[in-house]
């Protein structure tokens, strides 16, 4: 079951990997946090306890961030929040697989990946707070704006990867998708083009089993989403999305392959969306709680905790430290979001073009005139009613 020789011909990799998907996705740890008999064989680097502890910290941090963001919705500080609870291992592994100069293409569900990349929480959550669309500089963070129109980020990843390839830069683009978005035409066009260009792109599908209310079996008749790789002549790998070690192993191999000119890879991470689609959704309408309970037992954080505890790497003291770190971070988040952000209507006109057209300048004057004196003061939330 150590199928990760991605340098083998794509065809045989995907085809011969096939049968394994019928049974279990690739894993290192079982659901109880014990190494699986005959499972993946990660590199020594990945299994290094210090690395693993860093991963564990990141998982805990992602969960804390996600929990706090959910709280912020309830307090009315965020307009909406699509939680990644249960999918933290995918968020962490995606970010850890990349270098600073690599590009990440996140969706609306991947806010945790943004803060893991280092983007401040207020900037990362700007979209969901409603103060602007994208709150960070994509070039500075090598992170595209979170993408909402499903699968449309796929072709952007191809463009970034192809650009890097043509420029001779050893840069990789990692593109996140949900399972539902694999049905969109843009998913297909992106994977097909990436393979033709042999662009350095890793496509990571977080198969969390649902697209809002629609379960996977209404999304595809294939035995696995990773099967789709076959039609593009690229390797497809199905991995346990709640097993950070397995994910790291697979993504490292895929990223290395891309960086070395081996072309794109499709990775399907099998995981579960523990919360409703967003806070506005009512999951009880379409799934049973015992299904959720079953997945609660496969929690990616507990699984690694058990393993690290068994290794002796994790103990109460370290847990305490991490707890404190997380608490401090979320306390700061709460503080930052308690302040009403400043914003001014002028900004609506500033970024439509590099230089505003005469028409936009006219419209800016109109809005300014409506505001009257308020224009003199720097924009604040109090300007909301005109």
């Amino acid at each position, binding site marked *: 079951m150590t199928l990760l020789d991605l340098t083998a011909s794509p065809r045989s990799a995907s085809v011969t990997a096939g049968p394994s998907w019928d049974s279990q996705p690739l894993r290192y740890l079982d659901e109880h946090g014990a190494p699986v008999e005959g499972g993946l064989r990660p590199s020594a680097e990945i299994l290094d306890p210090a690395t693993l502890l860093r991963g564990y910290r990141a998982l805990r941090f992602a969960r804390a961030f996600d929990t706090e963001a959910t709280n912020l919705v309830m307090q009315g500080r965020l*307009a*909406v929040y699509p939680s990644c609870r249960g999918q933290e291992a995918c968020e962490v592994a995606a970010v850890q697989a990349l270098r600073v100069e690599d590009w990440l293409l996140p969706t*609306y569900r991947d806010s945790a990946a943004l803060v893991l990349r280092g983007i401040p929480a207020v900037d990362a959550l700007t*979209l*969901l707070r*409603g*103060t*602007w*669309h994208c709150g960070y500089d994509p070039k500075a963070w090598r992170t595209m704006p979170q993408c*909402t*129109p*499903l699968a449309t980020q796929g072709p952007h990843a191809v463009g970034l990867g192809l650009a890097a390839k043509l420029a001779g830069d050893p840069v990789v683009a990692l593109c996140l998708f949900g399972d*539902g*978005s694999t*049905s*969109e*035409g*843009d998913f297909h066009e992106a994977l097909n083009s990436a393979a033709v260009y042999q662009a350095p792109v890793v496509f990571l599908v977080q198969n969390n089993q649902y*697209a*809002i*209310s*629609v379960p996977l079996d*209404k*999304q*595809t008749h294939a035995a696995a989403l990773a099967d789709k790789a076959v039609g593009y002549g690229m390797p497809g790998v199905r991995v346990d999305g709640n097993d950070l070690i397995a994910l790291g192993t697979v993504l490292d191999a895929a990223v290395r392959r891309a960086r070395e000119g081996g072309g794109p890879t499709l990775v399907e991470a099998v995981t579960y969306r523990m919360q409703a689609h967003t806070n506005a*959704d*009512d999951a009880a*309408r*379409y799934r049973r709680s015992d299904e959720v309970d079953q997945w609660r037992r496969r929690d990616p954080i507990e699984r690694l905790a058990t393993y690290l505890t068994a290794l002796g790497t994790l103990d109460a003291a370290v847990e305490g430290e991490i707890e404190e770190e997380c608490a401090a971070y979320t306390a700061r988040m709460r503080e930052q979001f308690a302040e009403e*952000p400043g*914003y001014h*209507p002028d*900004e*609506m*006109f500033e970024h*439509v073009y590099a230089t505003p057209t005469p*028409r*936009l300048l006219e*419209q800016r004057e109109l*809005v300014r005139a*409506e505001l009257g004196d308020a224009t003199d003061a720097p924009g604040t*939330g109090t300007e*909301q*009613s*005109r």
Partner: protein
Amino acid sequence: MTATTAELPAANAPAKPATVTLAKAVNTALADAMAADERVVVFGEDVGALGGVFRVTDGLTARFGENRCFDTPLAEASILGTAIGMAVYGYRPVVEMQFDAFAYPALEQVVSHLAKMRNRTRGAVGAPVVVRIPYGGGIGGVEHHSDSSETYFAHTPGLHVLTPATVADAYSMLRQAIDSPDPVIFFEPKRLYWSKAALELPVSTGPIGTAAVRREGRDATLVCYGQSVPVCLAAAEQAAREGVELEVLDLRSLVPLDEEAIVRSVGHTRRAIVVHEAAGFAGFGAELAARIAEKCFYQLEAPVARVTGLDIPYPPPKYEHWYLPDADRVLDAVDRALAA
């Protein structure tokens, strides 16, 4: 122009009509159409068990079964194209695009096939598909959830483009859309989904292609549709307190356009203000303004004004109150028109 002519209630109708939301009126129209004609099928993303993200299809699968109302894979072009194939076969598909901006992937199917099927087959085959699109802003949505995309469709020959603003119209116009032998893009004003009114069934609010005068007035005509109708009614209310009587004309149908009703009203008031949420530049209001300026050239006392969304991408939630046409902006335009 009194298009709102409620039919007599059926014998066994309740004494008092129920007060329902616009969303519920759409839901009822779908259910009644499905009950009346088994060729009617409803499909789209999350329309089954969930009942749609706005609950507009709530209960349809439970009542009519998975063959009549079903979830599709997440692929808008395919949803549209599947509807076309089913329509050619003899069905009457009603599909939902989850939000305005998520209809864009289906535009090629709409423009190159749906709009042209009857024409290209020399009348042999029509494509009676209804495409329901919740549209417009003011709901605090993140980007891509508040577009007003009606102009793209209204400019495309071969489509009917309708948009109700009242509970009764939501019901009546959707029933008519489903009965139409031609494709209808049915824009649902999503901010009004939760607006309520009494709904006495059956109701028929006048044929496709007729506008409705929502308020009579003599000083200027507010030409509007969808979410802008209540905005214009509020403006008219306010103006009336200052002695200015505004006529509010709810177009209901962008294609076909009730030019007669527009010309009749503006011929009378001699001033027109066109109001919609879509960006103004090359927007639907341009057609209205151009047409009024042409047909009422000798009656107009002031230039036709346009009060529309700004010429910017739809802004983030905290900014949208600056973007959206509101009663104040409408009244400013009225003042300018009256001063001209």
